[in-house]
């Protein structure tokens, strides 16, 4: 039996209906699989939602889970991809005391070198935004931590595939109806 656990990005195209997130997440929960990150948004066409879920499982388990997800009435299609097959990003926000921006020269260097963006600055705090791979976000976090972070939040992974998604043609048909 296959035992190698790999990280997969699961992309699920669904109808935009109440309760569907619960139905999809229950499929992972039932198999005692932790969802590492999840994000939900509209897809390339307006009436279709897209979930992007990050999980670590064996590939054979992944295939079975995809089968169970696709079986759900309101799921249009589901796919899984490895990191190599996708372009993926996460996004994060840091809220940091404004004093540090002026007092700690090092912070300005960190901001510059990490290609992070200052979203807003006021007397009390400034907000830093960074998009990128998990390790880049983690590195920025480690660098800023010693100075004191007032708030930190990181989004789930979002990803697009390098190859054309097999669903594209179907979605185009949906758009024509």
């Amino acid at each position, binding site marked *: 039996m296959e035992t190698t656990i790999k990280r997969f990005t699961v992309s699920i195209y*669904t*109808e935009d209906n109440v309760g569907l997130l619960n139905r999809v997440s229950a499929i992972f929960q039932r198999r005692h699989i932790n969802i590492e990150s999840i994000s939900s948004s509209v897809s390339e066409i307006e009436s279709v939602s897209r979930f992007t879920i990050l999980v670590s499982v064996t590939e054979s388990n992944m295939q079975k889970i995809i089968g169970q997800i696709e*079986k759900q009435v309101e799921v249009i299609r589901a796919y899984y991809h490895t990191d190599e097959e996708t372009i993926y990003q996460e996004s994060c926000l840091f809220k940091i005391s404004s004093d540090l921006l002026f007092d700690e020269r090092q912070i300005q260097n960190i901001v510059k070198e990490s290609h992070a963006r200052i979203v807003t600055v006021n007397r009390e705090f400034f907000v830093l935004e960074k998009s990128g791979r998990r390790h880049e976000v983690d590195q920025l976090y480690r660098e800023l931590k010693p100075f004191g972070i007032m708030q930190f939040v990181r989004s789930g992974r979002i990803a697009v595939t390098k190859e054309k998604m097999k669903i594209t043609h179907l979605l185009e048909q949906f758009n024509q109806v």
Partner: protein
Amino acid sequence: MQTTTIKSDTSKLQNAQRMTGSEAIVRSLIAEGVEVIYGYPGGAIMPVYDALYHFQDELHHVLTRHEQGATHAAQGYARISGKVGVALATSGPGATNLITGIADAQIDSTPLVCITGQVPSGLLGSDAFQETDIVGISTPVTKWNHQVTKASEIPQVIAKAFYIARSGRPGPVLIDITKDAQFDTLDFVYQKCTGIRSYTPEPQLNLACVKSAAALINQAKKPLVVWGQGVILSGAEEVFRSVIETAGLPAAWTILGASAIETSHPLNVGMVGMHGNYAPNVLTNECDVLIAIGMRFDDRVTGHLETYAKQAKVIHFEIDPAEINKNVTADIAVLGDAKKTLEALLPLLTQNTHESWRGRFAALHEIEYDQIIQRDLFPTKEGLTMGEVIHKINVYSKGEAAIVTDVGQHQMIACRYAHFNQTKSNITSGGLGTMGFALPAAIGAKMGAPEREVVAVIGDGGYQMTIQELGTIFQTQAAVKIVLLNNNFLGMVRQWQQLFFDKRYASTELINPDFGMIASAYHLPTKKVAQRADLDGAIAEMMAHDGPYFMEVVVEPEANVFPMIPSGASVSDIRLS
């Protein structure tokens, strides 16, 4: 709700009638051809009951004595008739009581539409009286579920519910309707659902796969068919018979596949699985081509997966793509409705008889007959066996009865020994193993096929889980023949305790009431049999009786069901004692 139904015709709105949501629910059910529904009233579903009051001639409501009974009755109705079973309940505890039946229907692919009342939409999430998140609770055990908060959604959602429940691989659907949506009014037009863009009920038939399957079957020297309920659900019985007769394929069944072809058919080699027949289990691990049709390789069928049919090429005919390679890897997967795929397969098969291979089944059957079957059906020792009771039912029903069973030893014995001449005759809880299934399911079965004899065979444990449905039988006079096989034990658990827990009978002995008195209290004719000499006459009397009947048979308390594949063992390590 998003408009996901493919075809909608707004021109019909001109003929719309203004009515309440609750009347729309009832009219929608009638439009779907529903004749009978099973349910239990309560606060949040009262407007629907009020509407039902006005449609009593068109829609028969059966008041069960517990909501679990309503779902099981709806299942029994669905399983014998092939139609969608409908259950109705109020919010909160009424809704949660449906869950066992819904979960049972989900795992056994039974089409159900369950409608629950819900607190008014303004109170959702407020912990209102009898509020429970039934959509959340039922999500993992339904094929689809949906909450309706606006009266105008009702016809479309009910149409979608029936379409989903009965199409493709059937299953249970739950519709939760808030009380304000039941009271509000709408312009009612009913249009059946014919498609949902995100849902493909059956995969498209791939002729190339059918051809590869045919080639493999035609080359096989030692083929074995294992069929499941898919044959019955797709109405494939006749073409299935032609397939096995043409290619001379010995065919074994899973518990839910039983009765698709008659028990006496020369190619019917019996049941596979934990308490199945000796020959098909042993020869699963000798066949060269295993042809699985409409079955899902449940662990009770396969035993230890790593040693299951490893020598064989596996062909899997299946409607649900998620079942392919789930438990057993298929060399050839033929996706689609069993009837359509088998119809495509039939003309490609070459005539064969496989006589010497079939001889192996006969030889192994003889061993099982000598060591087990004879002793079960024609015992000489004191103490009645469950098998001889089933044998007498076979004799007096002439194999025409539908047998509804509960869960445990009696279920295995009934499935092993019941004679079925007609399809849709074995109604039991397979995947979920729900004790308490049989009594209410038998009521539904009798109503789904009033012309048929329905015999409920139940153990003393499961019987007491839904015994209150005797009240439903009394009130409706559903002519169910109840055969209670009483061994004063939870027999199957006791058997495992004997074999695997050194006879430590922890909480398996039952101190039982006088079952005859209980049935008599519901004015059922009753009979108790404790001696072999009385059995024949009693069964004859029961079968001849016109109306419901209760019979208790006191059977040997510590008898075991064999053959048996111990949990985790290989199918070929099946034990005869």
